[in-house]
């Protein structure tokens, strides 16, 4: 009885994993075929669609923009978020939790609402739309994740070593760089990579704040709207490779599990 029910539960788990991964796997699979349409039968495996893509200047432009934005977002939000998480960890638990819930509020809203709010705000305050406005917009949704991840690491952090350093005459600055930071650095890098993945993947906020030009997601959007060209599979594969690689690396480094 229990053996049967356990087997059923496991089968269900396997089914959900298959459901989560299959659509992504199909995009990757078809990006490496020669097919002119994304469907069966697969005639031949080839890198034709990647080669087509790599010949297009607009792809490289979008790729460059994506990397510029995601790199800046990763650096800025990991510094800002880490500072906040370190400060919150020294507060009382109740106050820290209230602050965490407040700071995470933007993640709970549809990106559409954040996108249009930023569009109207930048427009009325006269900030010209550019990659910089996209970076600012992405900080809003990446900062909460950095704070959560670094804060989780700081819960149960042993301050004894930091206190000893201070007792032995180290300034707060020196104590931070020689004691605290080396202990949390892998988590901070992990959080930066998560911020990078979110930024690379964002379409909606980018769409409303970029003004002109493309990132990889807005490049996909434009292509899907005109006609379904299998090179979209190749862009999708590149985007997935970037976001999944940074997430996997982040999970290894930060040992963060939700």
């Amino acid at each position, binding site marked *: 009885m229990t053996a049967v029910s356990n087997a059923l*539960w*496991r089968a*269900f*788990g396997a089914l*959900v*994993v298959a459901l*989560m*991964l299959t*659509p*992504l796997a*199909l995009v990757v699979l*078809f990006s490496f075929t020669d097919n002119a*349409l*994304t*469907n*069966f039968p697969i005639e031949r495996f080839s890198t034709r669609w990647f080669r087509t893509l790599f010949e297009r200047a607009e792809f490289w432009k979008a790729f460059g923009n994506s990397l510029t934005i995601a790199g800046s977002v990763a650096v800025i939000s990991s*510094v*800002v*978020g880490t*500072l*906040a998480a*370190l*400060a919150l960890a020294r*507060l009382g638990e109740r106050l820290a939790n209230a602050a965490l819930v407040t*700071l995470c*509020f*933007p993640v709970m*809203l*549809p*990106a*559409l*609402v*954040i996108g*249009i*709010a*930023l569009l*109207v*705000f930048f427009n009325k305050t006269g900030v010209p739309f550019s990659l910089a406005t996209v970076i*600012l*917009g992405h900080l*809003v949704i990446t*900062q909460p994740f950095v704070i959560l991840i670094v804060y989780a690491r700081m819960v149960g952090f042993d301050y004894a070593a930091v206190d000893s350093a201070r007792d032995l005459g180290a300034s707060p600055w020196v104590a931070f760089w020689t004691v605290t930071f080396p202990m949390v650095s892998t988590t901070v890098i992990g959080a930066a990579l*998560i911020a990078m993945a*979110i930024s690379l*993947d964002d*379409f*909606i906020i980018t769409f*409303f704040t970029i003004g002109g030009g493309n990132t990889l*997601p807005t490049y*996909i959007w434009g292509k899907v709207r005109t006609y*379904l060209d299998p090179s979209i599979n190749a862009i*999708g594969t590149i*985007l997935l490779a970037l*976001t*999944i690689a940074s*997430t*996997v690396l982040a*999970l290894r480094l930060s040992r963060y*599990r*939700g």
Partner: protein
Amino acid sequence: MRPRQAAMLAPAAAVFAVLFVAPFAFLFVVSFWRVKTFKLRPDFTFDNYADTFTKYLEPLVFTMAIGFAIATLTTALAFAFAYVIRFKAGRHGNALLVVTLVTLFGGYLVKIYAWKTILGTEGILNSALLALGLVREPLTIFIYNPGAVVVTLTHFLLPLAVLPIYGSLRGVRDITLEAARDLGARPARVFLDVVLPQCLPGVTAAFAFCFLIAAGDYVTPRYVGGPYTSMIGNFIEGQFSLKFDWPSGAAMAFTMLGACLACVAVSRALLGLARPR
């Protein structure tokens, strides 16, 4: 709070205040303005809200209905999956969790596009069915209907819903479960009286999360919903990218958020009533 902590919190607080609270508050103000000859005019009118309810009531109701369906389906699937990770998968639990986290951050647009290529008339599913000889003509029932939107958004939201539920299931301690069993509770009793009450906050959070994000989406209905499955998000987006009627778009956005919160509150109250004591 000491000055140094305040200084460390300041940049994050500034990002939050300047790039989130201020734009959000300003959007709310703009929802009471009006547009004259393509220019924003400060005003204090409820016309935009009245218009939302008269012109866009149908998509609004449809959005709430489909949002409710998606949030319910996703939360149920996510609960069962989180339950497997916590209690049934043993040492594979960690791997399942990693898969969940990896698909969480990878590919919003790619996932929607993937479903478009899977469900389309010349798509992967139809070509597979034809190749297997199960159908003679491509089926058109898979795409451009509300069902396709439900499938696509459920797939996208699933990892997002699994995490809060798993987080609360992790708080259920094995020793409590053993105590309940030792005192003679049957599995169903243990589940209803011990497991469920403890993970209700996670379940509610997951449901609210899915509801808001599903109801606010506009890309999925555009890609796989077809011309007759427009959600309120499509009309909001249209006010900003085509019609340049920002006040009415803003009013629609706040009406949508209000309707979502009301629906979540009602669902939560119903769940509270249905809960066995």
